[in-house]
């Protein structure tokens, strides 16, 4: 039994699928943001796996460098998304996307 690129990519794909399911099924803005966070976590894991197992990376720092960018973008997206959600809540007193 060993861990290679395929196993980590499988985890990444499953995480992305769960996030996509949540993004489609949730009605709350907070739930949508949490699902988007899951979907952004998945490519970070895939990039780390490509870097670790040496598939397709010319430079060994390429995967982690872009993964760091994705983590920072996820944090920024969350901050802006929550600001918009708070604004919407104070305007409409609701946090669902269909109200």
């Amino acid at each position, binding site marked *: *039994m*060993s*861990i*290679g*690129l395929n*196993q*980590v990519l499988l*985890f990444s794909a*499953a*995480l992305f699928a*769960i*996030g996509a399911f*949540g993004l489609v*099924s*949730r009605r*709350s803005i*907070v739930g949508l*943001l*949490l*699902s988007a*966070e*899951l979907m952004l*976590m998945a490519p*970070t*894991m895939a990039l*780390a*796996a490509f870097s*670790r*197992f*040496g598939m397709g990376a010319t*430079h060994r*720092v*390429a995967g*982690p*460098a*872009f993964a*760091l*960018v994705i*983590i*920072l*973008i*996820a*944090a*920024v*997206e*969350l*901050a*802006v998304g*929550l*600001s*918009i*959600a*708070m604004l919407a*809540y*104070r*305007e*409409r*007193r*609701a*946090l669902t996307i269909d109200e």
Partner: protein
Amino acid sequence: VLLIGGPTSPITDQGTVLLVYLAGGLMLAAALAVVLVRSALQAVVALSATSLLAAILFFLISDALLGLVQLLVYAVVAMPLLYLAVKETYGLGWTSSGFSSQNLIYAGSTGIVLLLLLGGVALRASWPAAAAASSGSLWDGLTRLYVVPLATIAVMILSAAVGAGLLRAKLPRRTTGTEPAGPRDKRRRA
């Protein structure tokens, strides 16, 4: 554990393989909890568990720097923001009634599992390994090979920070009266 990069061969050490499968399975279970639970606070807690387990996975596949950044970003930025947002909107109704013994059992067993997992990772890792040289190579890579993405992300982060600050500053004051009730108000009336 190298700070970044590492050998390209598959991981064959059976203890590490078991830990990777355990952390990955728990991470997927926590991610499922994020999208399936109804309480916003429970979803935030599940997301924090997911990010912690993802960081453990990064540690296990020899990307300690990514694991550290993941932990820092989610523990310092994301979770406090989410906690405050849920507190402002839903009102933390999940915790206002106190902890039941069942919740304590669940939380305790989850904490013990995570602690055992972290302990296993800590026992198998040699932490001081090659930290300075590897972080230097990452910085070189970012500043020489990926100057444009680095500049772009810096501008994006700055714009987002300014935009979020402006949005927060321009939020109207809460008014009372005829406006429709949110989840927190409904819970208070009940």
